[in-house]
């Protein structure tokens, strides 16, 4: 007997699957998000090759760069008040942002998923205590918690890894409750399913049931939260840097720090120091959020409803695709 045909492995990968599923406007947003994020990742990977200068470089063979120099051939985006090259710092900043996202999101996924699984599966007083704690942390301004955590971890200033770790851990503190809530809710739902009971009947032990049976069926919303958190991680890192709790300029390039130093520049009409690092933040967050938003729409049946109601899939495509794709071209 032939097994039911499944789509190829490639087509079942998270993003690829959604890309095929999407149409029209949605696909436009998803593609735009993927392109921006791709550029961001490439820049981070190739920063040493692309950047004209080092992130902490103050002079070349012609002498000091000079402070607050307007954009010129030597410094395409000008120099900062501290005498750094703006373009180089914007490019190197992608590496810092990328590192923080990776460390923060991995840490919070591991801890949050683990706690959520335990809490949802075991239940009882552990569950109740963890839920109250998670809700308390969740309701609190994330930035304030991150500030407190950053002070503890780095005492305010730090090296590249110290700074990345501080930012990442402080963001993790804030994100754990989010993963915790989602995974817990899913675990509670899944653990009452028949297959979990059958596993218990044949004598599987709790850890095996939790990690093999429940966890694998509880992860459907993770990609969505992942994108939301990745963009929030960048914003929090930048905010920490802006308030002066980020990474020192000699250890790594960080956009929030550069923006902080640009506050005074704005008053004297110097635009190139704030605008470029700021735009970098906006673009990266925009790219990641566009992906997340599209995944969200594709996962939410309420937002998909209308397309299914159209007479045939072809009709729906014809109705929304070409016009909206043009529109996206105009917008982005």
């Amino acid at each position, binding site marked *: 007997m032939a097994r039911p045909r499944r789509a190829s492995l490639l087509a079942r990968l998270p993003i690829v699957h959604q890309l095929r599923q999407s149409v029209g406007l949605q696909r436009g947003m998803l593609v735009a998000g993927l392109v921006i994020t791709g550029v961001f990742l490439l820049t981070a990977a190739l920063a040493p090759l692309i950047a004209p200068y080092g992130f902490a470089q103050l002079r070349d063979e012609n002498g000091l760069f000079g402070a607050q120099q307007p954009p010129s051939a030597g410094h395409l985006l000008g120099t900062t008040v501290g005498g750094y090259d703006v373009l180089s710092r914007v490019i190197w900043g992608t590496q810092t942002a990328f590192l923080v996202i990776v460390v923060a999101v991995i840490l919070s996924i591991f801890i949050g998923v683990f706690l959520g699984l335990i809490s949802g599966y075991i239940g009882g007083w552990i569950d109740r205590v963890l839920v109250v704690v998670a809700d308390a942390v969740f*309701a609190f301004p994330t930035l*304030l918690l991150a500030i407190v955590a950053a002070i*503890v971890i780095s005492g305010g200033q730090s090296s590249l890894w110290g700074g990345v770790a501080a930012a990442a851990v402080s963001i993790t503190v804030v994100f754990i409750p989010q993963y915790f809530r989602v995974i817990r809710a899913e675990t509670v739902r899944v653990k009452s399913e028949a297959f979990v009971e059958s596993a218990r009947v044949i004598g599987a032990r709790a850890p095996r049931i939790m990690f093999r049976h429940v966890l694998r069926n509880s992860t459907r919303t993770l990609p969505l939260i992942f994108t939301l958190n990745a963009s929030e991680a960048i914003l929090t890192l930048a905010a920490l840097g802006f*308030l002066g709790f980020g990474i020192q300029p000699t250890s790594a390039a960080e956009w929030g720090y550069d923006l902080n130093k640009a506050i005074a520049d704005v008053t004297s009409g110097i635009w190139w120091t704030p605008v470029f690092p*700021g735009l970098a933040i906006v673009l990266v967050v925009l790219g990641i959020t566009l992906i997340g938003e599209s995944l969200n729409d594709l996962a939410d049946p309420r937002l998909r409803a209308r397309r299914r109601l159209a007479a045939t899939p072809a009709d729906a495509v014809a109705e929304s695709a070409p016009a909206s794709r043009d529109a996206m071209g105009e917008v982005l």
Partner: protein
Amino acid sequence: MTTTVETPPPVTPEASRRARRRASGSLGRYIFVRFLLIFPTVFILVTMVFVFMRLIGDPITAALGGRLGADELAERRHEAGYDRPLIVQYFEYIGQVFTGNFGTTLTDNQPVVDVLLRYGTATLELAIYALLVAFIVGIPLGMLAAAIRDRWGDAVLRVFAILCYATPVFFAGLVLKLIFSVWLGWLPVSGRAGVRTELSLGRQDGATGIYLIDAIRSGNPAYISDVLQHAVLPGITLGLLTAGIFLRLVRTNVIGTLSMPYVDAARSRGVREYRLVRRHAYKPALIPIVTVIGLQIALLLGGAVLTETTFEWQGLGFQLTHYLSARDFVAVQGIVALLAVIVALSNFVVDIIAALIDPRVRY
């Protein structure tokens, strides 16, 4: 074709009264449970802040470490009680917090509660402006986006909403400042009011600290316009952050209600699209906004810290960054703990309002 129609059980007055009593009973219980939940929330946050802050050592060494000799430092620590066991200090601190004593700042020796009273009104004023902007921008645009969904206008609005969220408040603030204050020169660069206005408003009897109210009471149009001019950019900066969230939320919810059967029924009766959105789909879609505002308060407070720093708006957030850079961690701990209380209380109020509007959220 035969269909069986189930007759609903007759509703006796007695039964309906019982049902009503049950419903109101559950609301009372809901409020009670929500009220009790304030305590663990505040307790957990205060504990967390305490533990975090003490992991790095005692506040006196942190604040005055480089400036005093080792002997003097030890003496100051002893006076303040920071050389006792941590657990003793912890219980003392919890006791103080529950009696409303959040400590005294190290650097300028003021009770934290006074700092809050002096600067809290400024933050409150900023938050009110921001919420106004968020409502005015977010809700109509969200309805519009839902009404023209999947067309290019919708795409523009959605990208606008994402941009609102993707732009860090401080960057938005700097750009607005650059354009409208520095290049065009239309609006003041920073602060809550001009020096003269600030002085005379502060001298007024029974000044509320909310400058707009004080200015209106003074009856001097120059003051009113001065205060308003200073409020425009910070209000927009912080408001747009929330406006994007409102826009997305209203859009999603209106789309949800627009696909409800009763809307289809109305449409088949010939109700116009505009009226459908305006009168049928919009009201039920607003309920979730109320619940979301609860979470926005936390976001607004975080955003206020950044907005105030950008615009030198002398509020709590501005003070917080000031104390942070002075490494006065008693003040930081006190302000953060106090904000925890405020967040917990306002979430409580919002939850109650949501429960009053929508019976489904009650326990």
